[in-house]
């Protein structure tokens, strides 16, 4: 099995699916000749030609809007938002059209499409290039939100997302684009949407994370393991919406304790919903309040300060210890 970065793994998934299904087309800013500002689509223009890999004008609403048209016409567009911070220019097309054609026409017209977008901080980028706002998309019915955490699941989930009959927001942790490699099977591997993954089983504490926070979270878990010996159950959400609360609640019913680690601001966030689901289905098992280790409710600071604002490993360790000791 070759060891790939997430950029390579996503590129692989796109390449595989374009080869398998000629309905798949890519569109976005700088994705063709340039291969994407992160090189995620590198080489695809050469392989599949300009009819299937389109450098579009600079207009996010029309990128999604025209992708909706293509999907309605039977293509399978995969659109790129250059950064999730610019995806709000198409939010009305998402909320008002992509997520609604199925319900509006009771299935007569549908929008099978994917919107890929790098999200999150930690790469010393300019304003608007570091946000993590998955909650905004997660609240909108009719669309799915997927956030891979590593090369292998990124590839397997993207394949599922492209094949999904409904629109999917696919948020890629840009901080993890090249920061590590993973073995990715050569044979096609798909991973179903809507299912969280228990990446480590344990009894004392449930830890939930997703996307770029999985790496520091796993490191923190290592530290805890060596030092204190408690047994952690670690869950990687993978799909944010629809949320796999069954997996989370089953775990919390077992451990009685839970820490949620998230990059986004705390209030009205994905962590809030997870707590609400635990309240619904596992409240009586809780031995401590669920802990949200989240971003703060501030406007995303410029990168000079950002390292203080995204929970580093020691902060996660402390949150775990506090919850274990509660």
């Amino acid at each position, binding site marked *: 099995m070759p060891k790939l970065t997430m950029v390579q793994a996503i590129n692989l998934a796109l390449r595989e699916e374009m080869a398998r299904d000629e309905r798949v*087309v890519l569109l976005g800013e700088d994705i063709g000749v340039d291969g994407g500002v992160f090189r995620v689509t590198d080489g695809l223009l050469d392989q599949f030609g300009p*009819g*299937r890999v389109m450098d*579009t*004008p600079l*207009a996010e*609403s*029309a990128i*999604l*809007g*025209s*992708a*909706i*048209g*293509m*999907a*309605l*016409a*039977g*293509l399978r*567009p995969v659109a790129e938002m250059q950064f999730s911070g610019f995806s709000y220019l198409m939010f*009305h*097309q998402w909320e*008002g*059209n992509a997520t609604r054609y*199925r*319900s*509006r*026409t*009771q*299935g*007569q*017209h*549908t929008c099978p499409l994917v919107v890929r977008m790098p999200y999150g901080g930690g790469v010393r980028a300019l304003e608007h290039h570091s946000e993590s706002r998955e909650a905004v998309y997660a609240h909108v*019915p*009719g669309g*799915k939100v997927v956030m891979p955490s590593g090369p292998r699941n990124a590839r397997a989930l993207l394949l599922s997302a492209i094949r*999904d*009959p*409904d629109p999917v927001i696919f948020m890629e942790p840009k901080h993890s684009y090249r920061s590590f490699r993973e073995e990715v099977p050569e044979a096609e591997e798909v991973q179903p949407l*809507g299912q969280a993954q228990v990446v480590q089983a344990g009894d004392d504490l449930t830890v939930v994370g997703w996307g770029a926070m999985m790496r520091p979270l796993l490191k923190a878990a290592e530290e805890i393991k060596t030092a204190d010996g408690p047994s952690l159950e670690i869950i990687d959400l993978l799909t944010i919406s*629809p*949320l796999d*609360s*069954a997996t989370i609640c089953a775990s919390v019913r077992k451990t009685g304790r839970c820490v949620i680690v998230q990059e986004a601001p705390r209030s009205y966030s994905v962590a809030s919903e997870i707590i609400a689901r635990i309240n619904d289905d596992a409240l009586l098992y809780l031995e401590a309040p669920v802990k949200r280790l989240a971003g703060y409710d501030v406007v995303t600071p410029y990168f000079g300060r950002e390292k203080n604002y995204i929970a580093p490993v020691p902060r996660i360790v402390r949150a775990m210890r506090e919850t274990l000791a509660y």
Partner: protein
Amino acid sequence: MPRQTLAEFTIESLQVLDEDGRVDAALEPALEPEELLRLYRGMSRARELDQRMLKLQRQGRIGTFGPCIGQEAVSTAAALAMRPDDWFIGSFRELGGRLMRGEPMVNTLHFHNGWEEGNVLPPEVGRRMLPLTIIVGSQVPHAAGLGYAAKHRGEDAAVVCFMGDGATSEGDFHEGLNFAAVWQAPVVFVSQNNQWAISVPREKQTHSRTLAQKGIAYDMPCLQVDGNDALACYVAVSEALARARAGGGPTFIEAVTYRLMMHTTADDPRKYRDETQEQEWWRKEPLLRFRQYLIGKKLWNEKQEEALLAELRAEVDTAVKAFEEAAAWPPDRPFEHVFATMHPALAQQRQEFLAHVKEEADA
């Protein structure tokens, strides 16, 4: 060389039938009598259904809707110019065109009474026609994508996309036209300039003399037509469709017409406009003019007119009857159409929902 002319542009206008139904023979399209009658019938059907819906709405039998009265020519003529495999992407004043394309009247009624079921069209009709667009202008980029898809697959189908005058102010209008032009996609954009966007008159909507000139921003062929002249509309859309199919890219057409009624039944135009303006435009309305033309061609007479109206009244009666007698649809259908497959948490919500609804019905 220093201060020099780089480019020159001209905006033309087209009228074939004047306000009294006199035709400009040089411009008259070569339509068969059967086609001319179909066009007239199409416009009349829309007029009849609109008028009935106005009554139904006042009686509380349907919800809010926006009548198309006075604007029948644009979309009906466009529908005549189109082929069945062309995409018809409307805004919300294309009743004539929708009916011409085969939308059953009963669907229109269900839609306007708050049921998604109204959008579910017979397969051959729905295949290339989308429901009304409520988010003003948001359909314009869709049309670019539909056009791209047709071109990409080597179909010679085209797309006709309608929007209002107000819609030309939205960013999506601009982005959609730009994409279509860059792709040289086979799309005909038709702006129904009915002079008003709710209470905002055309002059306050945008500072340009014409809407047609907005196509210049994309080097797109553009034209203003008399939108109350069904023949001019037919000619303009036909030309644009032919160019689109021949690989000549998109066209932008401004069809000058007038919204003779309220914006929607929730609106009261007396708040913002003068009735004399409405009266002037009633004299220029499209059916009158087209009827004169048909009569002049000996294709129509009083008796035929009466027979048609009676027939349409009966057709609408039948549709209203079917609409009002339709069996109730289950309350929980929305759960089924969030996603292709219902996820477990939603299935549980549906159970709760159904239990609630049952209890509340029993109470």
